[in-house]
Each structure stands twice: as C-alpha cells, then as structure tokens.
C-alpha cells in the first residue's frame, strides 16, 4: 500500500510537490482515482489525492462560465448547471462502467486531465475546447496560472490545451474554469436499421455533411446493439445507426424531416424522442455494451480516433481478424473495440489497422496491469514528436515527480 496525501487546498498541493522534490519522492496525481486503471501502471511512491480540494467557486449562468476546484465531483457540477438549464456541452464520458468501477465517481480535474468528451464531440468539441483557465502546481513545485474566465483569450500560450489530456504528468491542477452552454430544449434521434459498417459510415458521413446539424452519429453493429440497455435497441435484431438532432422544437422537427428524406435510401428508419433518445446517447457515451459488468466483459478495450470516413474500414478489419466487437461513434471517427484477450491485448493488430486506415491514435483503455506495463498504452509517437513531448515534460516536471511513466516511459 502506498501512502496517500490528501491536500485540503491549493497551498497543501504545492507543499506536497515541494516535499516530494525535497525527499526524492514521486507522486501519482489522482482525483478520486476513478481512471487509475488507465495508462501504464503507477511507479510512484506516494499518491496525491485531490478529492478534498473541492467546491464550485464561481458560476455565472449569464456569462456561461463556471470555476471549480479540481477535485469537485463532475456529478455535482453537472447537477448544478442542469438546474439552470445548462450543461457541459462536450458531454464528458464516464469511464466508470468500462473499468468496472462506479458510475459518476470522477472529478472535474480528472475530466480535463483525460480530455474527455462524448458523442457531441463532433459538434461541440472536447474538454480542451471548453477549458478556459487553470491554476496548477508544476513539477517544480511552483503554482502558475494560464487562461482566464473569458472565452476569447489569446494572451500568452494556451497552457490549458496542454494540460487537457496530460494525465497528471505535467502539473497538478487545483482550480479550473470552464465554459458552460445552454442545454438544448429538444432532442430526437433518427435510427437506421440493419446497416453493415461500411454503409453506416457512408450514411453518417452524408448526414454530417448535410445542414441537419447532427449532434451525435453512432453505429452499433448487431452483436453490440444486442448488449444495449434499451429494449428497443437490444431487441431490434440487428445493427442500429443513430443520428441525434438537438435544438428548439420547430428546428428539430424540420431537420428530422430533412434527415429522414436523406437517409431513406439507406435503410428502414425508426426514431426515438425524449427519454429514449437521452437514454440511448447516455449508453453510447459510456460504452455500456463493453461495460465490465456486462456478459463476458473482461476483454481488453481500445479507444481509436481516426478519420471518420475510414472508420468502417479500420473497425471491420479488426472485427474480422480478431473476432472483436466494435462500436462506432463520431460518425466513424471514434471506434471502441473489445477484443478477446491475447498476448499484447491486440496492440499490434489494432495499431496496424489504424496505420493502414490513414492513422490517428489508439489507446488501450482496459486491460490487466501486467499487460499495460508491457505494451504501449498510448499511441507511440514519431521520434521528433516524442522528443518534443519529452522536452515539454522536462519544462514542467524536470525531476519527473508527477505521474511519470503513466503515458510513456519517462513521460
């Protein structure tokens, strides 16, 4: 059991890093630890748990801005903004179910450190696009800030972008400021039934390139649809392709009409509105079909980001070669893959198919710790980029005290 330090505030967090520097200790930076099983297994001496550095410090709905201490539960923030008819438009996914933990356990800092997003990524962006300002402690034990509380800001380097998706390896975030947006009044989903992967990606591509303003485009092949928690999807007896429309009622009605006309040539259509639509996208967002509590699910899970139009080519190749299940989100640009266990968790095959399919990045999200220590969990980088990333790490954390080795050896 490693020691855990639980700072009460930003000052404590700074003291903890300074202490670690003074005593040659390394820290594993976590919020509640809900995503701890992602990345190379921790080699740190002490856990730095930020969950007590919590609380919303500013929320001005009219200004579309919210600030919170990094350890604030995401659930608390989502409930608060929902009470004002607003939301985090990037729809952060929750790794809880996939990793076999509880749902809703993550912190805001963790959401940003992992640059989470959800189905609405295709329209609204990821955490990085909504992250306006930060105060953080570098691996030098110095507290710095970047950004601010306004959306339009180009003053100095945008360090928020760099911290988003840095998995605790550069700095300990203590305070974060985010953009919030009004929640859509209405949501409806148009469903296409029984498409193969290639036709589904074609249909989604056409829908995305229309003026229907689609805010979610996912394809669930038959076996994956069968694992969905909605009876109407699980019982459809085949693949389901879902296209989400959100907005004011007259607009959604008009766009649904247009979208159905556009999609008719592809497949038989159906639709969900209200609660069913919401439930469907919640399930896609957290990848319920591959949840660890599901039927057989201790299979390794990969998250692959690729050029959307190449999605089916990559996904089908892996599905056929490995007997894998795949779920497509982002109109084909995000491929979730669950494969039968194997020596390298399928790394060579998944990354090979991705390279053939035009490139992108593949991250091993779920697998036993021993495998995560042996294979590249994060996409290996081309040498000049890897060297640059290492120099960036050294600029923030020269002694490697912060979650070092989590993304790549030495980083």
């Amino acid at each position, binding site marked *: 059991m490693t020691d855990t330090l639980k700072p009460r505030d930003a000052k404590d967090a700074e003291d903890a890093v300074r202490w670690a520097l003074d005593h040659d200790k390394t820290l594993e930076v976590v919020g509640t630890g809900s995503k701890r099983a992602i990345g190379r297994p921790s080699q740190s001496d002490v856990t730095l748990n930020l969950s*007590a550095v919590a609380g919303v410090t500013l929320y001005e709905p009219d200004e*579309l801005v919210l600030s919170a201490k990094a350890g604030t539960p995401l659930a608390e923030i989502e409930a608060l903004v929902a009470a004002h008819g607003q939301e985090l438009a990037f729809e952060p996914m929750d790794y809880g179910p996939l990793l076999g933990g509880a749902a809703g356990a993550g912190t805001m800092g963790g959401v940003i450190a992992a640059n989470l997003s959800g189905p609405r990524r295709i329209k609204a962006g990821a955490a990085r696009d909504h992250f306006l300002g930060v105060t953080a402690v570098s691996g030098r034990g110095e507290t710095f800030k970047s950004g601010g509380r306004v959306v339009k800001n180009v003053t100095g380097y*945008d360090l928020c972008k760099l911290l988003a998706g840095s998995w605790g390896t550069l700095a300990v975030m203590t305070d974060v400021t985010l953009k919030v947006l009004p929640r859509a009044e209405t949501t409806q989903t148009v469903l296409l039934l029984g498409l193969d992967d290639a036709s589904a990606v074609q249909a989604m591509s056409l829908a995305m390139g229309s003026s229907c303003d689609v805010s979610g485009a996912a394809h669930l092949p038959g076996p994956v649809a069968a694992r969905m928690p909605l009876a109407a999807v699980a019982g459809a007896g085949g693949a389901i392709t879902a296209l989400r429309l959100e907005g*004011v009622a007259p607009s959604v009605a008009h766009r649904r009409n247009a979208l159905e006309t556009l999609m008719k040539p592809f497949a038989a259509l159906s639709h969900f509105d209200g609660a069913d639509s919401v439930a469907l996208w919640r399930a896609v967002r957290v990848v319920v079909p591959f949840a660890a509590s599901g039927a057989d699910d201790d299979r390794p899970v990969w998250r692959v980001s690729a050029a959307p139009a190449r999605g089916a080519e990559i996904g089908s190749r892996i599905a056929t070669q490995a007997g894998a299940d795949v779920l497509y989100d982002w109109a084909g640009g995000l491929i979730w893959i669950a494969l039968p266990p194997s020596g390298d968790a399928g790394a060579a095959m998944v990354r090979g198919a991705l390279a053939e399919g035009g490139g992108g*990045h593949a991250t091993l999200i779920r697998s036993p710790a021993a495998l995560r220590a042996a294979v590249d969990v994060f996409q290996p*980088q081309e040498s*000049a980029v890897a060297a640059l990333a290492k120099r960036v790490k050294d600029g923030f954390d020269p002694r490697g005290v912060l979650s070092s080795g989590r993304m790549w050896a030495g980083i």
Partner: protein
Amino acid sequence: MVAMPALDAAVLARREAIVHALHGIVPGEGVIAHEHAMRPYETDGLTAYRQLPMVVVLPETTEQVSAVLRYCHTEGLKVVPRGAGTSLSGGALPLADGVLLGMAKFNRIREIDFANRVAVVEPGVTNLAVSQAVDRAGFYYAPDPSSQIACTIGGNVAENSGGVHCLKYGMTTNNVLGLEMVLITGEIVRLGGKHFDSGGYDLLGIVTGSEGLLGVVTEVTVRLLKKPETARAVLVGFPTSEDAGDCVARIIGAGIIPGGMEMMDRPAIHAAEAFVHAGYPLDVEALLIVELDGPQAECDHLIERVSEIARACRAVTLKVSTSEQERLLFWAGRKAAFPAVGRISPDYYCMDGTIPRGKLPLVLNRMRAMSERYGLQVANVFHAGDGNLHPLILYDANKPGELDRAEQFGADILRLCVEVGGVLTGEHGVGVEKRDLMPTMFSEIDLNQQQRLKCAFDAKGLLNPGKVFPVLHRCAELGRMHVSGGKLPFPDIPRF
C-alpha cells in the same frame, strides 16, 4: 514604443555571406535583399512600428523551409515568420538582424475531403480562399476574421484568430485538426491529422496561438462545416449601453446562442452610418446586431424570441431583416467600422481586450472618463456575445505626442480589462504591442512557465524574439531548480 532585442553586430557584418547562403537554399527571386524590394515587409497591421529586415526569404517547399531554419539555427540567426502581414499586434514585425520568412508562396489547397469534412491547405492560402474553394458543395470554414480576404491560414493559426461567428462556431483552435510544422532545428513534425484530439500531449493546441514563436507552420488541416440554410439578423437600438448589455445577457440566459451578436456605441454607429448608409438609427447610444442562422423554421422562431427580449429591454428601434440583401446591409456598417472610423480621423489605434460581459457598462463609463483625460476620442465595436471589445482610439500621428498618448490610453484600457476579470487580448495577439503589459496579467512564475514551453521548441530563442515575452530568459537559467534548500518536513497534509 516597445524596445526590440539588441542588434547583433556580428550577424550584420556577415550579411552578404548569409544572403549568399540563403540563395543557395531558395534560388532565384526567393531571396530579397535590396532595400526597396524589402520595403513592403517593413511593417504589418500595426503600422506605427516599422523595421526593415536583414533579408527576406520566400520558400516554396517544406524542404526549403527546413533547410533555411536549419541554416539559421546553426548560424544563430533570428527568424520572423510572416503570412500576409495583417497582424494588429506587430507579430510579423521584422528584426534588423533577422531573416524574414515569408510564407506567401505556400498558396495551394492540397486536398478537399468532403467525406471527412476537412481541407488540407498550405499556410499562405487566405482565410476566405478556403471557404470559396468549398462553397460549390455548400461548405465553409467557420472562423471569419474581418481581414479574411487578405490574412492567411498560417497567420490565423499563429494568432488563433476569431471572427464575428466564433461565439457559436469557435476560434481557429476549435477548427484546426492537423498541422505540419518545421522546428527551428529543421525537423519536420506532424501534429494531428483528419482525426479528433491528440493521442499524447496536445501540441497542436499549444502551437495554435503561439504567434510564430514555436515553429513554422507549413500545412494546416481545417474542419469544414456545412453552411446554414438561412441566416437572418435583427438590428436593435437602445437608449443606453446598460440596456443593450442587459439584452445580450437575457438572450444568452434564455438559452439562445446566436450565430453572431455585435454591439456598436454612438461614435461607431455615426461613423459607420456616414460611410455606408446602412440605415442605422442615429439617436441611440448602443446598437446591437443579432444574427440567427440555421433552418428557416429555427431562424423565424428565434428571431421572434430575440425581438421579444429586446423589446423588454427598452429597445427603441428594432428591424428584422426580410431579405438576404437587407441582412447584408445590416452587417455592412459593422464590417466597415474600422475604415469608417479611419475616414473621420487621420489615424486610429485598434484595441482588443476581453471582459466578462456583465462589466460592459462599467468599462464603457470608465473609458469615457479616460477619453476626456487623454483628450482623445474613442469609438467602440464589440463582439458582445463573448465580451471581446475593440475600442478604436482616434488620433493624429502628425501631431506631436498624440501617438504616445493613444498608446498610453490603449494600455490603460487593457489594464482596466484585466482589472475587471478580463484579458489583454481576445484575438489579435500580444505581439510587440502588448508585450510589456503581460505582467499585469501574469506573475513572473506564470511567464517563466510559458517560456519553458518555448524552450522545449526553440532552446536558442531564435524564432520571433521580442514578441509576447517582456523579458526573454535563457533556457539554461529557466531550467535550473530552486528547491527550498533546507528539507521541508513532511508537510502538514492529511495522510492515509
């Protein structure tokens, strides 16, 4: 005026050899060394600053950029990248002992990929040219700086430029997916691609908005969006700026994010109306243009709601565009606001702070007081939806001392923006212009941390020195650790 880095006499003494060597890399007319031919490069959109470069190089291929940078790196030569030279913050201002690297010849659109909704373009392509190239299929590139006929995508990436539609569609950083870039060492790196997000550190996000200090961008992959079916605008006049500000807050409070929401104050309204005759009311203190876009049904619905809100906020005039022609007319005045002010004053100085929207009345009032104190008029155009102010300070450069006063007035406005919780620049960049104001927003620790990032990309500090950072520290010095010395005891933090 802001001081530039000290001249390197040894470099200037070698000028002839340097020009010769650069000719060897970029043959023919790609190297410009004659004074009169370099004149067009002596300034950018911040025309108060002028400086001839040592030499201008106009490469045509990534390999040439790489070879030029490798040479400059080896020889210790400073390099200033340049797109179209429309920067309003002096980002492309040359250095007397530096190489000006013009990217104008990188002007091809390499690929249009409708299936993935992206275009792959060279950095010298103008912003508008991207939208024009995809217009036939009903697509466009969303960020739309007012300078879009001239400014380049490379410049947009370097400045993280915005436009009137970025309230709804985001700035450059939200609309770029990939880059090819050359580091000062000559190494060529690719960041991102046609997919979303980074598999590692978001270096693409850092390079965007880095003002030419981290590398030279040689290719950009931008997102394309389908054009909205329709757009309609409402023109609303208010008796006070408080009422207009209130209206903006209530529109957003009602859950409406318009495609664009622009405000002008009385001096700006009068200047614009005199110039383009857009039909603006002249007896109001503030004018709001609210544009809704999307399907007809959506625009009609939201126009109705926005109009109701405006009436409840004491609007004294309210006109809804009934044709595309009328919508464009509403915008014509706003879009011509800078030149319109240019007509009523020999010179003007354009500022670019951002404030929390609710502080607008306060900031406008304080600005009025400053205007009296400095004896200089100011006209305001304002991206009201996202709090980005563009005060235009009117002055006459031929009157002794006026430029100085205008600069001081501008600096006071920016300090005020920071004081009320805003920032120094919303979209025009720090450049040389706001460089020395950085400490009003950032501590020394903040600035040093930013510079350590600079060191990761450019350890010798050769790319665009003199911009953004008031003091450039040596990387070796920044890398040093000053830990407490005596060992901190185990800190007083709860343990488990």
